[in-house]
């Protein structure tokens, strides 16, 4: 029996054995990025979504700006936990910053702690943990239980937690997308809306079927 099949069987047995364990609600939040919404309906709420930015200039920040725009339209508060203090407000329309809480961290460990605090706040609709530039050694040192702790923190809330990483790192992620291709030089002359529409995050993992909530 393949490992994935064994895992699926184990999950099924656990679900039968412990039916009272809270199940993640199959609710999603559409992002406006066609490829992502078509794959899963949007970002799953009460769960972790991992965005793997596998290539330089692959559009991870572009995706973040799109999330800011979508949440701005609904006036939903967003927290950006910036592990390497790399967010550039000047690259974004000032109006898209009105609902943003920017946490400028000094390292991966600090960012994880801040995300753990923010993920429990009922006032936020989206928390983005940016580990895109976190050192490889830091990422390797993050213990698995810490990611599951984050998952547990998010489960009772209505927020979506997005983690941007340079490589697959979040074992508790319900959904994982990957941005694999770098943008070419010519995109610097193209309108951002067009670039956003062309973003094509590839679905790498989806732990369970997510129903689209529209």
């Amino acid at each position, binding site marked *: 029996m393949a490992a994935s099949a064994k895992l699926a069987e184990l999950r099924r047995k656990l679900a039968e054995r412990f039916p009272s364990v809270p199940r993640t609600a199959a609710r999603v939040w559409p992002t406006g990025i066609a490829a992502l919404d078509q794959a899963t309906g949007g970002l799953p709420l009460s769960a972790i979504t991992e965005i793997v930015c596998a290539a330089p200039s692959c559009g991870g*920040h572009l995706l973040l700006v799109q999330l800011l725009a979508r949440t701005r339209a609904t006036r939903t508060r967003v927290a950006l936990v910036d592990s390497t203090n790399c967010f550039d407000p000047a690259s974004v329309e000032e109006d898209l*910053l*009105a609902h943003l809480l920017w946490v400028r961290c000094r390292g991966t460990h600090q960012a994880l702690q*801040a995300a753990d605090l*923010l993920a429990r706040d009922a*006032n936020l609709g989206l928390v983005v943990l940016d580990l*895109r530039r976190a050192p490889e050694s830091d990422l390797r040192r993050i213990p698995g239980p810490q990611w599951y702790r984050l998952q547990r923190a998010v489960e009772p809330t209505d927020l979506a937690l997005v983690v941007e990483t340079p490589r697959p790192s979040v074992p508790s992620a319900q959904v994982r997308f990957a941005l694999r291709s770098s943008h070419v*030089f010519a995109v610097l002359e193209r*309108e951002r809306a067009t670039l956003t529409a062309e973003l094509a995050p590839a679905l790498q993992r989806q732990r369970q079927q997510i129903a689209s909530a529209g």
Partner: protein
Amino acid sequence: MFSVLHIADFALHAVLRTERDTAHRPAALFAGTSKKSIVLAANPLARRAGVEPGMTAPQAVARCPSLIIRAPRPEAENEARAVLLAIGFTLSPAIEDTAPGICTCDLRGLRLAPEPLAASAVERLGELGLPATAGIARTPLLALYAARAASPSEDAFNWIEVERDLPSSPSRLRRGEQAMARRRFGEGGRARSIGGRQPDGARRSPSTILCPAAGDGGIVSTRTAGSGDPALQRSHTGNVGQGLPTPPSAAPRGIAPERRGREAPPCRNSTLADTDRTELAAERWEEASPSPHDTIVAEDVGLSARDAVLTVADEKHFLSPLPLAAADPSPELAAILDGWGLRTLGDLTALPRDEIVRRFGGEGLALWQRAAGGAPRPLRPVVPPQTFSAQMEFEHEVETLEPLLFVLRRFSERLALELQASQHVAAELHLALRLEDETQHARSFRLPEPTADVEILFRALHTHLESLTTAASIVAVALTLTPARPLVRQQGLFETGLRDPHGFAETLARVSALVGADHVGTPRREDTHRPDVVTLAAPPAVVSPPAAPPVHDRVGLPLRRFRPPLPARVEFTEGRATYLWTEHVRGEIAQQSVPYPSSGDWWQRDHAWARREWDIALAEGGLYRLLLVGDAWFLEGEYD
């Protein structure tokens, strides 16, 4: 109707409530900290261990090795007094600070039943570390008698047994009972007891509403020992706090010594500066104090707050069995009346008032009136506090968080009560910690929404303190609340305010403690062309509606900055950059834009800036911004 909230052994409980884990340990209040200082008061656990007022410290510790020894602390008493008054304001807007540990409330005009309110007040005081009883009666004096009688003392039960069989003369007491009475009440113990005699000899329920229909002379239960409070009684004659307990020697044997000052034992805040005099007074007070036993409070004997409330419905039957000492006669008058065979208030009031006046003059009239329960009188109203602050100096320096939080919790509870009583909420908190090295740590907290919720106030302090490290231990703490009127604005249907403003503030405080207050907030761009100038502001309480989209959409990818920019080395070939080296990024430059020069602030010395930037693409992938400042190359960021 009047109600009296009464805290027995007020000075002791005032001190104990400022410390953790003292509620269930034996403790005693001493006149001083020297070996010769004597026990002024002891809590029930200490008394059970054999500690009695009047003992010296070595004697007390010999009987109870785990005894907590504390000295009176005026600021703790002031704090406890403020708590008592704040609770009093929950009963009535017209209250009187009658004496330490005694708050009289005017319940006239109250449309609700007073007993549940008084029970609630007693329960709340218990939660705040001040075990109390309450009495409800027609006059303030009667209410005080009732409050004292409501004191649920275990020894009071025993005393009732003694008193029930008590003959008219002390000589007829059984030996053990005589010893018990002498030990508890001094030589004049019998004469100074109030209440407790029950005609049918039956022990009654502690719950105590007196009514004549009970078939026992109207006394359903007067099950506790106590006596009139001289301090209170002095207040009726305008002499509150005057005088010390009359020396026992001044009273004839068998006659109750005067109990003035029982509620205000000599302590540091006494007007007496002389130590010897204070100790002597304490000794006398102790000797005069009839009932260290009646200070056992409801929670000590497992009684509910409702049981600690006594309502006097039939004054005559309530007052009749009370001993004459309850009315606080002067020693001379007490001796004379005792010689006449008058033992109880009922005995005295059975005599014609005019005859008493004819023989004893004004003093006799006043005594007769007190024996009759006094009369309703206007209270000296307490003005609700206009400032909301609390401060305390610690007896021992504080080096850990728990004792500080415990005191701040007490402060928050009291201040929240005062805010609620004055129809205010707190808009801002000011915390000041005085340190051992003579420095001070001060911090102000602006609450996201003004509130008088003690949990929210305390949480704001807790969140700050749990991440605070001071250079020295803490010797004093002060907390001040800035009052504000409660918000009455109703939010609009489509407004997106915070779901939990205080929770958000707490989260922000925790994150600020983690990363620094200047590293959290909503970014605001400055009005300048200087690159990467941004400030962080507090997140808005309400997210404003989105602005209209810009006419021209932005072009290109957003920048992911390196902060600080990465120093770079650039190789040129024929005037074009062809290779890039940085700490993290290196590679052949495949494409590059034309340079984009910018400068500003040239009119300000030391603020002028000038730079040239290129957008480049590496052959292996990746779009970056290359920067030239002076002669130095930097990689400013990655387009992502």
